[in-house]
């Protein structure tokens, strides 16, 4: 008797548990679901404001980019997602190749976002920019010592360079951008000479590279501009110290330009609420939202009419790679394989 009761309770429990996902439907009112990699409070404020202005509520699902893409793929036409917002054009290229996105025709988006920061097939649209720069300690390196990424492969930089793992997408995209511009042999040469100059086997994240320079383990590091921003405004006074001591250098100003990447948004292939989703895309690219949106993560707004954060402005203007970022997706796999082959861990 008691046993059956227990058994019954259990089956009830399990069905309730599994029912949890059955129940996640949209509300009756207009609402859209965005799969986003970002976790900023300011984003939520923007979405709230968007809802006020348009009446469309925004449901945010947060996870890492790779996870979001895999989910989208698994979910297929069952997905709840209308929008995908992730960092790195290479990843978006992958999502596009996996048929997870669909093209969007929007005059507003075309107006607000420069062409190279939009997918050539209109499946994704960059919203914020970041540059991959050289960071150095002024006591040991002077600005005149620096010029290009490639120069860091020279013998003079032996044991003085740090950068994070090749498995990280930012490095992959950087190499992909070089493959889009140069011959493969050229890039291979660069990678192998760069690896030869590593002060240590890659470990840690971008900020750890800056800290390694600070510690004297290395003299230069390659990392994304927004990490310098995060450290400068960190609640940890020691990170602030690091940010204040180190300097930012934009490489390749005389040659191909500094590598720039974007965080971008795309409309999912099986989006249920296409029109409202496009509204949000246009909103985020608009002048009202761009400042807040980019500043949350110390990135450059993609909308040329909006000014960047004061810290970023203080580093000055720079010449970016004149490269359509769609290419980052095209050369992504090749870049990953090349890095593995040349021993970049």
């Amino acid at each position, binding site marked *: 008797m008691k046993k059956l009761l227990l058994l019954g309770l259990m089956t009830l429990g399990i069905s309730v548990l599994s029912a949890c996902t059955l129940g996640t439907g949209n509300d009756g009112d207009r609402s859209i679901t965005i799969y986003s990699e970002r976790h900023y409070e300011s984003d939520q404020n923007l979405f709230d404001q968007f809802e006020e202005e348009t009446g469309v509520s925004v449901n945010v699902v947060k996870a890492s980019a790779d996870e979001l893409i895999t989910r989208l793929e*698994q979910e297929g036409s069952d997905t709840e997602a209308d929008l995908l917002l992730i960092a790195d054009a290479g990843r978006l290229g992958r999502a596009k190749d996996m048929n997870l996105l669909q093209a969007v025709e929007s005059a507003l988006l075309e107006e607000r976002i420069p062409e190279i920061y939009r997918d050539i097939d209109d499946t994704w649209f960059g919203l914020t920019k970041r540059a991959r720069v050289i960071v150095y300690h002024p006591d040991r390196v002077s600005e005149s010592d620096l010029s290009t990424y490639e120069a860091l492969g020279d013998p003079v930089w032996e044991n003085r360079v740090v950068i994070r793992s090749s498995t990280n997408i930012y490095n992959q995209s950087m190499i992909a951008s070089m493959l889009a511009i140069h011959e493969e042999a050229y890039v291979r040469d660069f990678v192998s000479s760069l690896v030869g100059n590593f002060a240590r086997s890659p470990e840690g994240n971008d900020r750890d590279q800056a800290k390694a320079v*600070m510690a004297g383990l290395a003299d230069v590091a390659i990392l994304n501009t927004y990490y310098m921003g995060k450290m400068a405004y960190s609640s*940890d006074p020691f990170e602030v110290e690091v940010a204040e001591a180190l300097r930012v250098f934009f490489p390749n100003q005389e040659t191909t330009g500094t590598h720039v990447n974007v965080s971008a948004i795309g409309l999912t292939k099986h989006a249920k609420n296409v029109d409202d989703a496009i509204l949000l895309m246009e909103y985020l690219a608009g002048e009202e939202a761009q400042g807040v949106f980019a500043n949350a993560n110390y990135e450059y707004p993609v909308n040329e009419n909006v000014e960047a954060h004061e810290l970023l402005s203080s580093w000055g203007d720079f010449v970016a790679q004149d490269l359509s970022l769609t290419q980052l997706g095209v050369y992504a796999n090749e870049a990953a394989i090349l890095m593995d082959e040349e021993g970049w861990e």
Partner: protein
Amino acid sequence: MRLRQHLHSFSIVSIIVFVLVLVVFLQLFAGFTGEASDAWIHIKEYLLFDYIKNSFFLVLFTALFSAVFGFVGAYLVTFYEFPFRKFFGWAMILPLAVPSYIAAYIYGDMFSYTGIVSRLLRGIGIVSQIDVMSLFGASMIFALTLYPYVFMTVRSSLNKQSNEIYESARLLKVSKSKIWRKILLPLSRPALVAGVLLVVLETLNDYGVVKYFNVRVFSFAIFDAWFRLGDVGAAIRLSGVMLIFVFVIVVIERVLRRNKVYYTLQGRKRLRKALSTKAKVFGYMALGFPLMFGFIIPVIYLSYYSLLTYSKTLDMELLYVTVNTLSISVVATLITLFIALFVANLDRFTTSKFFKRMINFITLGYAIPGAVLAVLVSLFFIGMDRDLVPLYQLFGVDKTLVLTRSLAMLSFAYILRFLTLAFNNIESTYQKIGPSYTEASYTLGQGKLKTLWSVDVPMLKDGLIFAFVIVFIDVVKELPLTLILRPTNYDTMATKVYQYASDEMIHEASLPSLLLVSVGVIMIYLITHRKLKKRVK
């Protein structure tokens, strides 16, 4: 004919579990039959050897360190008397409440340039930095947070050994070192090996530590292939290789453990020896070091940064996440215990070779690393959902993925993974009790289920509670499985911590981490002090 007597609730439940485990396993082969992708060929040529090499050394170092921490601690606490012995007796288990990945984030931060250790060193003039984010550092972290498994198994084994063995050896004028070599170590070997195996399996299962420290081992590779390269086929092949690796380890363990010795506790209470002052110093260091670095320092760090960042992290979402974690952990653990009870009962009384082999197979589940299990379980569920679409449509449900990405799927994976842990604990408790009570009940005309409920369960109570706590803590800490299989927008405390760490917000990760650790501490305190209470009676 013979079949009828073999089909009862215990065997039916066990057979169902067996079939499920088997089917999940078979997904492995489904993946292998596909054509080898470019990514796989690439991995095989450039990376596979490194994965194997690194996994091997990681396991080796971790096994060594954890064996030393656990064994020495257990030995001191069992055979000697010294101030705070009782305290150490239960406190040495506390590091189990600290997930390895949290310890990794903490020490990674502390030893980073801006971390407290480096700053202190710079303060006294030492400029060079200690680099913990290496394979060696990772194995140290695993050893510090997982040695309690060794401590517990060795201590329980040493407790069973009577004093008389050692006393007679000493009367025979056998030297101390010979006693160690010829008596103590051999008798403790099965327990030592069993404990180290648990540590090794947990190490191979981990994803958080190795990802953060960039240690290229199998779990890292599987995640990488699946998510970064988007190649499920490669992920499956890597899982296959990893399973072979794990299988070899398990076989080695079974061989090393082959002399299973049963000893009974002789009635007398153990007389502990006192320690000389010199020995006391050594003893406190040997006990204090792992406890300090495995638990105390992490907790201090977490408390400090929680205070610093709680205004940012103490919000409703944290509350939801905590409730989510606790509720699913309780349900999954209870179901796991329930099933383990049934399988253990089949194991107790069956003489059938078929059933014995079947149970052996089921208990291999623990060895399957979380990442691999996640791959196999999700493939299994997706396939099942696709097949069940007609049924769903019958109920008017338009979706394909009903079970996939549900809490049911996540619970299913938890159960498969932790069934063995519960089973082992219950089985050993049953062994302590012996079969006669259950058999007496049968001869009094009570059926199997009634006996289980009225006779076995009350007698197993302590063992059941212990098993519950051990499994519960593991489920709460669990990361790789949960990361991959969780429903959309569903976070556990563990995934929340991982997310903060991935966003490089280590300090903000402190409050959820502290909560996670607290759950473990409370559970550990409850069982160790419940035990103590009983012993006094």
